């Protein structure tokens, strides 16, 4: 299938359209635990987190990373991501609104494939970065 991004049209500085999730919920964390197989209790067991001195359950880093990856594939097209990297910064709590976006930092050709590289970020409602990351995607 032809890549969604047009290499000649993409410019350094282009922004990935924002994917906003208003108010992540505890059921979101539970659904992600079941879907992913990550059953670390910090993300769904209130009794457990309180015993550990944490006020409430919080999101799996990879749940938020999943939302970010959806922003990326909405823009670059599913099947065109060649590299996706995330670093976890601040926690995401129930009720947080997260904004997933990114921007293009480079265009290159590698092994005969046209590629676009860029940065990724997830911000919470306070403007704090929950995740910082990077990507490489194929362009046509």
């Amino acid at each position, binding site marked *: *299938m032809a890549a969604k991004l047009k290499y000649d049209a993409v410019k350094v500085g282009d922004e990935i359209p924002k994917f906003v999730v208003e108010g992540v919920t505890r059921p979101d964390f539970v659904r992600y635990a079941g879907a992913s197989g990550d059953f670390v209790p910090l993300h769904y067991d209130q009794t457990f987190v309180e015993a550990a001195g944490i006020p409430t359950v919080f999101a799996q880093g990879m749940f938020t990373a999943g939302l970010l990856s959806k922003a990326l594939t909405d823009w670059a097209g599913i099947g065109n991501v060649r590299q996706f990297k995330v670093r*976890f910064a601040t926690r995401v709590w129930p009720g947080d609104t997260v904004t997933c976006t990114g921007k293009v930092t480079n265009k290159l050709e590698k092994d005969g494939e046209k590629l676009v590289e860029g940065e990724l970020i997830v911000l919470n409602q306070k403007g704090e970065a929950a995740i910082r990351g990077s990507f490489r995607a194929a362009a046509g």
Partner: protein
Amino acid sequence: MADKSIVGRTGKPFKMPIEWSKVREFARAIKDPSPLYFDPELAKKELGGIPVPVTFLQTSAFWTDESSSPGFGGFDLRRILHGEQEFEFFKPIFVGDVLTGVTKVADVYEKEGGRGGKMTFLVTETEYTNQRGEKVAVSRSTLIETGQAVKAN
């Protein structure tokens, strides 16, 4: 405590069938309603098969056990945070594929923690090949063991 002797250790290969039901469930969990995950005819026409979400290989958790772990030495898994995660893709992955994964310890190192105490970093890499023996993906995880219990940020 950074036990560098575990670097290079590998676990036993594990099999991971890529199943449509799990792909749909995962797509819903990350709030992605793309018809390419839900409509097999459309997916076949556009991509040649039903694709997987970018972070779907996290579901290897359902296919691994102690034998597929390389063994982490003295790491205290109760004090582990997920620091970084990376995926690289070399060939498409489709529902119906059966992947084989092998996990190795790629690196172990220490740093001073911002909240006091030592932080030990454990980097593992899992290489995935498909049923045709083609390398399809590499997943790289950095876990951080903190020197003390982590307080809320």
